[in-house]
């Protein structure tokens, strides 16, 4: 191995340790945020006893979950039952690997260790765990893996509630993945690039994609809510009807793994929204952050990225504590009859618009973005008008016309 390769590997190791460690810490933090914010929405205070503002509450919860008894139901499929929580937990973490969370940081070192030899690195280090050339495809592939853990958990528990929860989860996640993928394709179309660093760079050159791709953003938010099983799409859990769905039979740390996996997915989905539609670590109205890489730029952009991500986390939690749950048929109808046609039609419109813009040789700059935004506006207006004037989602019975 050359010293450069060893340096690269070492850096990768450090980055993954720090990155995943930070994510797990972030997950713990978000569980606290969720409880505090929920309380504030309900005029309560929430957990504020353990440590300053109750910040150490997640640690107390963690200790509690470690001490609790691990139960495996008598007729459960033991191997799958134990495997499922890990399968839910890992995709949430893995997704985070391809998200760039700051501007590249210049790193240079050259040292030797006994036995291992010389380590060299001297370059602007991309601030992401893995700069995969197929970034967004990786996101789609890994986010679909999450459903396996939930289905296995539901099936292996040998409980009717878990089973129903698992069934619902599989149907729901498979359905909304279609809309999620299609809304991400709109980003591909404009960026012409699969890597998330490329998407961020394209947004710096043009506009944050939330404007030229407004509808795509809305579709992404809705399907991301469904993908992460958050309210108003938390049918797999549905504590009022299915007890707790697929994790009814889980206890102690295995239950906590589901919990952590859910919040890890919440954070990564928020980070994805920030990256795909809100410029990632880009600071608006300035090109200072695109200049020469330095440590200060990296840290500032990291802060900006965290701010964006956590504002989405806030919105997620806000939605959860505002909206009631969908009925199952409404959920399916929304996914297949509303979101999918809208996404397909939008893609066609977008592709046509881009083709025309390229035909007139318009550069990908601010004007280009604003023209696309102008294309979005009437579509959104018409969609809002149609959806607002009729029932947004028909159940089975809603389709019968009243004859009288």
């Amino acid at each position, binding site marked *: 191995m050359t010293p450069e390769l060893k340096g690269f590997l070492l850096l990768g190791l450090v980055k993954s340790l720090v990155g995943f460690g930070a994510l797990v810490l972030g997950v713990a933090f978000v569980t606290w945020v969720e409880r505090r914010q929920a309380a*504030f*929405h309900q005029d*309560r205070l929430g957990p504020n006893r353990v440590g300053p503002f109750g910040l150490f509450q997640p640690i107390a919860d963690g200790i509690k979950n470690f001490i609790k008894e691990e139960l495996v139901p008598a007729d459960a499929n033991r191997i799958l039952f134990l495997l499922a929580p890990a399968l839910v937990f890992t995709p949430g973490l893995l997704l985070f690997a391809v998200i760039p969370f700051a501007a590249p940081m210049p790193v240079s070192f050259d040292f030797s260790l006994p036995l291992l030899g010389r380590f060299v690195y001297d370059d602007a280090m991309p601030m992401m765990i893995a700069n995969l050339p197929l970034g967004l495809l990786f996101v789609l592939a890994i986010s679909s893996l999450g459903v396996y853990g939930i289905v296995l958990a539901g099936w292996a528990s040998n409980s009717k509630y878990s089973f129903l929860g698992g069934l619902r989860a599989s149907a729901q996640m498979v359905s909304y993945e279609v809309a999620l993928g299609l809304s991400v394709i709109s980003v591909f179309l404009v960026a012409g690039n699969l890597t998330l660093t490329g998407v961020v760079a394209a947004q710096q050159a043009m506009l944050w994609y939330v404007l030229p791709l407004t509808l795509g953003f809305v579709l992404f938010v809705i399907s991301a809510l469904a993908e992460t099983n958050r309210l108003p799409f938390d049918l797999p859990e549905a504590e009022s009807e299915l007890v707790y769905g697929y994790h009814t039979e889980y206890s102690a740390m295995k239950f906590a793994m589901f919990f952590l996996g859910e919040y890890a997915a919440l954070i990564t989905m928020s980070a994805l929204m920030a990256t795909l539609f809100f410029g990632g670590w880009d600071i608006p109205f300035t090109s200072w952050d695109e200049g020469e890489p330095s440590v200060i730029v990296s840290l500032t952009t990291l802060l900006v990225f965290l701010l964006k991500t956590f504002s989405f986390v806030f919105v997620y939690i806000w*939605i959860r*504590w505002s909206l009631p749950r969908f009925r199952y048929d409404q959920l399916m109808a929304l996914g297949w009859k509303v979101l999918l046609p809208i996404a397909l039609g939008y893609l066609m419109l977008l592709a046509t618009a881009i083709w025309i813009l390229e035909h007139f040789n318009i550069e990908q700059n601010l004007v280009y973005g604003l023209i696309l935004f102008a294309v979005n506006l009437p579509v959104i207006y018409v969609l809002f008008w149609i*959806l607002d*004037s*009729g029932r*947004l989602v028909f159940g089975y019975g809603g389709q019968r016309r009243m004859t009288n």
Partner: protein
Amino acid sequence: MAIGVKVVRRPERDVSYLRASLKGMALTFQHLFRKKVTMQYPEEISKDGWSISPRWRGTHRMLTDEQGRARCVACGLCPQICPANCIKLVPGEDEEGNRYPLIYEIDEFRCVFCGYCQEVCPEEAIHVGVHYENAEYQRERFVYDLERLCAQTHPVSSLWDPSDPRGE
């Protein structure tokens, strides 16, 4: 329609939950900044406008006479009526023939706080109290003996009066 089937015409327009959802979101957002109603209990014992009911039936208290002796005459009515069988009473008698309790113990774990003992007591000696801070470190400490019952100082419950059902 042979039997009276009522056909309800459901609205077909303007029933989308799009606006309603947005309205709801706005409402919950406003609640973020409302005054919180939580009473931070051990530090903040009571808040304005908050008190427990005078008819609250908590742990017992034995009233005493001027000489500091328990008013109880060991008539045995309270252990008789107690549905949870939590009162232990061993009566004693002094030289003048006055009955007094040799042992009077109430197991607060067994007690269902019905308040019958207070209702039945002819001497108005035993009472249930307006009191809720009962934490102890040992289970045995929840068997209150006579000395402890007499030492309690919390206000006593005013029982429901049938002629004044609302406590006015």
